[in-house]
């Protein structure tokens, strides 16, 4: 069972990509890109986990020296979430422009670039 969380990350990644490939709506595509990206959170947090350890924030309940999980991957996941949110917003703005210019949001109906 010790590889199960990693396999979950791989599964989420592949399912996100599968969703992008068979997408019929550009908003659906953007959501699938977010799903794909969220697999990295699972992988990062799984890599940094340690059994019976707490969050890497010391206080009265957890004095310095108590076992904590890896804070480096948590900082990376935090970075990842912020970037993911803003990139989704940018992609959705692109979708709005595509809908305005081409009158469709179905990827298969978008053929040529138009200025």
């Amino acid at each position, binding site marked *: 069972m010790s590889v199960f969380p990693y396999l979950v990350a791989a599964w989420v990644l592949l399912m996100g990509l599968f969703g992008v490939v068979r997408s019929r709506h550009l908003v659906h595509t953007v959501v699938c890109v977010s799903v794909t990206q969220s697999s990295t959170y699972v992988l990062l947090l799984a890599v940094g986990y340690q059994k019976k350890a707490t*969050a890497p*924030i010391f206080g009265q309940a957890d004095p310095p020296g108590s076992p904590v999980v890896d804070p480096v991957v948590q900082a990376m996941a935090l*970075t990842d979430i912020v970037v993911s949110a803003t990139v989704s917003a940018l992609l959705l703005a692109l979708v709005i422009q595509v809908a305005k210019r081409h009158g469709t949001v179905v990827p298969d109906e978008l053929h040529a670039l138009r200025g």
Partner: protein
Amino acid sequence: MSTRTRLLVFAAGALGLGAALILAMLRIPDFGNDFHPYRDATVAEALHRHSPNVVSSINFDQRGFDTLGEEAILVAAVVGAATLLRRTSQPRPPRPAIASSSRPPLLAATRLAGYILLPVTLLIGADVVVHGHLTPGGGFQGGVVLATGLHLLYVAGDYRALRRVRPLVWYETGEAVGMGAVLALGAAGLAAGTGFLSNFLPKGTSGHLFSAGTVALFSCAVGIAVGSGIVVLLAQFLDEYLGADEGAR
């Protein structure tokens, strides 16, 4: 490319990627093991610099340069979205205004909850930003809480009130100020002779508000930038959706 060919190409690629991932995952250290050299190094360094929140210490001190790049991505994405959604020179035919009588009435409870939670949420957001080096939180999380808290006004059904407390110019400026403050903090480190974005201020005592050197300042700068950035971002989408007129900005 037909849907069928595309799925076949994807299946081949996914099989390859999946096999490679599984092969790699079988060989990385077991889930939940206790060998984390980076953790040991960063925790020791964070405690040395009196920042009990190790994640904040990494984000705003030990790997501050990364955070600078990340904030640049955020600013770039906000500018990009604002550019894409800006009003074109040809004004669209105005969306037929929904008469207030034809709208379903907003539940009084929703309205009340919105107005009561607004100050509470803003307070929590500010608390999360300012205490980023001590308790869970930091500039990114607190900035998002602040920005979404402001939009409780929209949930409470008062878009005009939201626009009154949201002159977009302030938030566009706020975003630039936040980004500039991070750069200024980095330059101050250079001027102090310790290096770009180094923690050059006195570290104080662990657990006090004024401790951990530049971590709290960096966190506040990021909080301002993230909060303003998200307000600007949401404003573009709200204006797009509600078809607001340009002059009222």
